[in-house]
């Protein structure tokens, strides 16, 4: 377990900013407690400093998770957000997309969001922008990257893709092994 290097921080924040923009500040400067990002086994964990200090007692091999896992660095040095970060992403999301009830299951099985399933969308969402997917009753379902801007969406035919799938909560079932 160690703090992120400057290079890693840059890559990680770049990715994070795609989804929550400048709200990253809120993750770091919290009124209740000091929180920090820690790297362990190539995964980035977001955890309060108190818990982090207590967890230093635990050996490197035995420590498997602390706080909330945000994602992991790939072998090529890129960062991949995991579905486990959804709680925080949803809290600070800049662009939101709501899918209709009939689109919930297709998305949770790992498919892209189609125009036909699009319920609502944040206005002025640009193209290729990270966005959080919600169900119509505001339960976050996952996140993805927009394929079209809001204005382009209007002209799209029903089978056209609106959001490229990145991660969805169905992964808790499908990919329990890979989350670790």
């Amino acid at each position, binding site marked *: 377990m160690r703090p992120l290097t400057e290079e890693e921080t840059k890559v990680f924040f770049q990715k994070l900013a795609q989804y929550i923009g400048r709200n990253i500040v809120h993750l770091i400067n919290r009124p209740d407690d000091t929180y920090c990002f820690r790297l362990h086994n190539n995964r980035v964990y977001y*955890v*309060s400093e*108190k*818990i982090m200090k*207590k*967890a230093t*007692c*635990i*050996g490197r*091999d*035995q*420590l*498997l*998770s*602390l*706080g*909330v*896992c945000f994602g992991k660095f790939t072998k090529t040095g890129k960062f991949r957000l995991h*579905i*486990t970060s959804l*709680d925080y992403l949803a809290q600070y999301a800049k662009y939101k997309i709501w899918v209709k009830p009939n689109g*919930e*299951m297709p998305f*949770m099985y790992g498919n892209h969001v189609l125009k036909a399933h699009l319920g609502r969308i944040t206005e002025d969402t640009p193209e290729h922008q990270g966005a959080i997917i919600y*169900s119509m*009753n505001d*339960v*976050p*379902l996952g996140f993805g990257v927009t394929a079209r801007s809001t204005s382009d969406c209007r002209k799209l035919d029903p089978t056209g893709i609106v959001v490229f799938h990145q991660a969805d*909560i*169905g992964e*808790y*079932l499908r990919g*329990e*092994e890979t*989350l*670790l």
Partner: protein
Amino acid sequence: MGRRAKNKQADPLPLEQTLKRKSSESNNNKNKRAKKAQAQKAKNPPKKQPQQPKKEKAQKKEDDEEEFVIKRNNKIDDESWDNVETIQDDDEDDEFDDIDEFDDVDNDEYVIKKTSFNFGSDEENEEEEEEELEIEKEARELDERQKEDEKLAEEELKINVAETEKMVLTSGQEIEKDSMMAPDLTLIQQRIQDIIKILNNFREMRDPEMSRTDYMDQLKKDLCQYYGYNDYLLSKFLDLFPINEAIEFFEANEVPRPIVIRANTLKTRRRDLAQALINRGVNLEPIGKWSKVGLQIFDSPVPIGATPEYLAGHYMLQAASSFLPVMALAPQENERILDMCSAPGGKTSYISALIKNTGCVFANDANKDRIKAVIANIHRLGIKNAVVCNYDGREFPNVIGGFDRVLLDAPCSGTGVIAKDPSVKVNKSEQDFQMVTQIQKELLLSAIDSVDANSKTGGYIVYSTCSITVEEDEEVVNYALRKRPNVKLVPTGLDFGKEGFTSFRGKTFNPSLKLTRRYYPHTHNMDGFYVSKFKKFSNKIPKVNKEEDEEEKDVEENTVVEEEIKFDDEEDAKIIKAEEEKRLKRKGIKPSNNKKKNNNKK
């Protein structure tokens, strides 16, 4: 149409009446009750569980659904029942003449059964209806066959008691025959009933030639065969319960416990969750007064472990029994808590939910594969204060100590969850029990040592198992009380459950053990479970006297012996001999007197 068929056409009794009659019926002789249990078993077993509560539900919703119910009832009466009857008439017409004389006795029960069934199927969809009818038919046939048998048996009993008893205890020849043929379950069931009857009224009904042990031996043999337990485990249960309760326990192990979910208060409220699930067509109800977060699922058109609500972390699938240790632990906000054996994370997440993500929860488990489930679950449920680690629990005070509270849900033989995992019935031997109790004792001691007695709010340890044998429960707790005089038992804070044993088969335990709680499948309709709660009042471990020290060594070395048996038998024999002498010395018997005996044993 026979008289029997007419009965089936009778109007359903009002619910209260049905229930009343049912209860009065249950007071009838045991034969009838057992009969019913078997008939129910023959019906689709998983369905049986939801039926009872559904009856209540049906009553509640009567107003809304009256029309629907009526329609359904008509349907059942007009079409399906007719079909069944015609089929049945073919089969049974010739039988009726024989049975007719008993019919009057049977009628009552018959009506009751039918009506209660009608109630159950009111809310079910069409497919299930058809299925159930078929099942019901089978059940009825089985029932009738059995009734016939039993009638005959009863008559025999009336005519000549001795004759029945002759039938009860098989001769060597017959046993031989038995082992060659496939076992006839109805016969065995009948014999079990008879022996129990005799045992209950031993003085009058016994055959003077037979001793109680003869009867017990036969009963054990039959129970083993009928329920499929191994001898060792069966004797354990018979020691634990009186015979009638033991049968109830075995029966309860044949039906699954209800599915229970725990609303995750970090993300939702129970009422909202219930509404969301009802909208998906799930049939549920609050679990009881003792829990504010539990919901019992009766039936569901969607898989409960894969709904969007589940994936969004609004609830956790968790057995009712596993709420108990966490409720006993009663974690407070801002505490540091250790869950020693945490997989798959149900209890850990409940702890986190209770302390509202404050403080810190260490989730430990020795099994790395099962830990993956813990990580997935705590992330799904939105828990942010957890640290997951993979140690053997026994290393614990050395890794990190000073916890406010420790929960130890120890690995166990699983004798309380036979309904969930029937393989326990056959694959547990005496050695397994020794091994597992040894680990439990060590874990409990390290759990006690990991707690900080000076904690302002805490200083508590909860020890629980999903096993109901005394070896894994009271004996372990008693052991810990002896080894660690700096802890005492305190009330668990659970207002139901049976008190723990303070003495069991000649062993006496600390009287405070009655503060612990036992839960049984047949009395509480949850998995068999044991919960005890300690309070640590000093961090110093007072010096335990020498004798007990020796005992610990004894226990530790015993396991070593087991492991080494494969490598060096001679060496082991020496150790065993030495240990045997030590043990006898402790009992106050001079080893020299018993040497012969020991040698014989070896």
